[in-house]
């Protein structure tokens, strides 16, 4: 039985010595660290994706703890829920940001926008855009070279090869904004996510005068202000020959869509219109939204 005693004695003494030394060390070399950082980190999704703009979840947690307000801090992966938890933990207010989704504000498909030259360089929107105006005359239109597609980590964008325009798959988009950053032409905008993924927006960012814009592209916004006049919700603003629909104000009434003479306003994911007059006047956006649906199904 004495060997058991030795075993017990030696192991226990090692254990206790370790405990005591550890305790003393912990006391002596204590470094103040905010335990709250740890808690915040726990609340985050730990994806370390960088979507928030910080290199890791831990650093983002530190940023949350150290900044006065959480307004500029948003974890796209965890979403509003997570930010609420973080805010709770820290006792800070978070700005209520509605869920957002990326939309492509260009309708200059091959059909709508004549090509004026042929590009033969490295296949990258950024390279082409830095080089020159692009293979159409529109200086702000989509270059169709997939920079946004490549940068999306969630495979939420694909390029429709028939139109030469990227398409966002709303369900997959996390509104991380990577594509917005990547697009050299600033075509992509994060807009409020409406129910059933419905969107109404001006799918053009060309600020040229109407005539010129129209020459480049048959569905350009020509700044005619018709939509502006028809909107009852003051969601539309005009500036530099361009209309803009504020997604936070828009009530999705669809009045502006039919008003637009160039079909520059798109309505996506709406049920088809039933009135007879609209049948013949089927808008470009209808066509595109139908196309989107079939594409996704494929």
């Amino acid at each position: 039985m004495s060997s058991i005693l030795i075993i017990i004695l030696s192991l226990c003494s090692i254990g206790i010595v370790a405990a005591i030394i550890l305790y003393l060390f912990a006391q002596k070399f204590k470094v103040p660290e905010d335990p709250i950082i740890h808690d915040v980190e726990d609340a985050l999704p730990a994806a370390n994706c960088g979507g928030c703009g910080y290199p890791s979840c831990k650093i983002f947690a530190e940023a949350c703890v150290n900044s006065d307000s959480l307004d500029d801090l948003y974890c796209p992966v965890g979403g509003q829920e997570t930010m609420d938890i973080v805010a709770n933990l820290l006792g800070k207010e978070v700005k209520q940001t509605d869920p957002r989704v990326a939309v492509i504000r260009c309708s200059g498909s091959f059909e709508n926008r004549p090509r004026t030259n042929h590009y033969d360089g490295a296949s990258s929107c950024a390279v082409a855009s830095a080089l020159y105006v692009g293979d159409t005359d529109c200086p702000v239109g989509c270059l169709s070279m997939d920079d946004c597609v490549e940068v999306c980590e969630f495979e939420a964008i694909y390029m429709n090869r028939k139109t030469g325009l990227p398409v966002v798959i709303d369900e997959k988009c996390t509104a991380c904004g990577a594509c917005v950053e990547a697009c050299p032409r600033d075509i992509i905008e994060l807009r409020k996510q409406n129910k059933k993924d419905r969107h109404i927006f001006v799918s053009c960012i060309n600020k040229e005068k109407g005539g010129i814009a129209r020459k480049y592209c048959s569905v350009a916004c020509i700044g005619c202000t018709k939509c502006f006049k028809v909107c009852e919700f003051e969601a539309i603003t005009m500036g530099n020959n361009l209309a803009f629909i504020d997604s936070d104000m828009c009530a999705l009434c669809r009045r502006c869509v039919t008003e637009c003479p160039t079909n520059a306003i798109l309505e996506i994911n709406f049920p088809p219109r039933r009135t007879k007059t609209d049948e013949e006047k089927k808008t470009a956006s209808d066509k595109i939204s139908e196309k989107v649906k079939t594409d996704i199904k494929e």
Partner: protein
Amino acid sequence: MRRNQALTTYKKGGIHPAEYKLTDKSPVQILPLPEKVTILLSQHIGVPAIPVVSKGDTVKVGQLIAQGKGFVSANIHSSVSGKVVKIDSLPDLTGYKKSAIVIEVEGDDWEENIIQSTDLLKDITLSKDEILEKIRESGIVGLGGAAFPSHVKLILPRDKKAEALIINGVECEPYLTSDHRLMLEYGEEMMVGIRILMKVLNVRKAMIGIENNKADAIYHLTDIASKFPGIEVYPLKVKYPQGSEKQLIEALTGREVPSRKLPVDVGVIVHNISTAYAVYEAVQKNKPLINRIVTVSGKSLKKPSNFVVRIGTSVRFLIEAAGGLPENTGKVISGGLMMGKALNSLDVPVIKGMSGILVIPEDETKRKPIEPCIRCSKCVTVCPMGLEPYLLMSLTQNGNFYRLEKEMVLDCLECGSCSYICPANRPLLDYIRLGKTDVKKII
């Protein structure tokens, strides 16, 4: 006297593309006046000039129409006489719209103080400051390609001193011959221009670097140089991109301009041959920079030629004068094959920095399909700046800008040697250029 001397060149990298100097025997012709010119207000590096005329004004040849504001900027003069019909945004060489003045040509009415005779005026009467002012007023920019306002280069920082002036007569790009013809036909005027520059810079020595493939120019200039004290001609081995400032300085003096430093830091100033000629005209004849020699060339063109062209003339007009655009044209390039810009439209105007228009047939323009890098290190070997293009490209593609900066991407000359040599047809320079822009954004 230097004819038997061993040819020098720079040490590192370089390539040897085909030369295609089709027009080196074609004397410079004066191009007829066009009906209309479009003068861009941003033809130089720096702040665009501000218009000082308005729509409807009549202007004379050589009249100031836009003024350079700010330290790095340049004046712009009317190259024709006539009526200002439009001041608007118009596509520049990249197709993006930039401010421009459109003048409809009426007659050829010059400003009175411009001396139009072709007599050689050899005596330099103006003082150093007066010369400098004259150069600034005349809107002279570097005609070697970068179009950097010349007067800025001539004002040395207080603590720096130039020991020598280097004149860049290398013209290492394929096809281009405008500098070559200028050296042959206006050699003496150019020499006077060099003397003027030497006076401003207060240097005793000027070195003209000319590549060995322009033997006639070397002989010619060596002969007349004996009449101009301090000026010497140095024949150089043919190697691209010898025309680049840093490489030329090394070839001639053995000194290397350190990264992100200017030539003055090693005691030299570099000017192009055409710039020297423009300086001569400005100082001795009061003539601002309103025209330049442009090589219009290409194997498919009927009449490849060297033209004296008024700034603002449309490229289409030039090509018509050279026999019209051939049916099979694929690319029209402003500048040389290695560094030039491909144009997306012929309706763009000639600018001060445009040294040539090249018309390239369709079958020669196609880029070959990109293949994976086989790490052959040829791009590393040819890079004159000692960079690693293959790495810079993939770092750019991966968005690793921090490392990109560390790998000195900003030193890249954009000479294109790497893309030229790559056996896998990789668009190295396309991405490196992008990388440079991105790095500049973060630092």
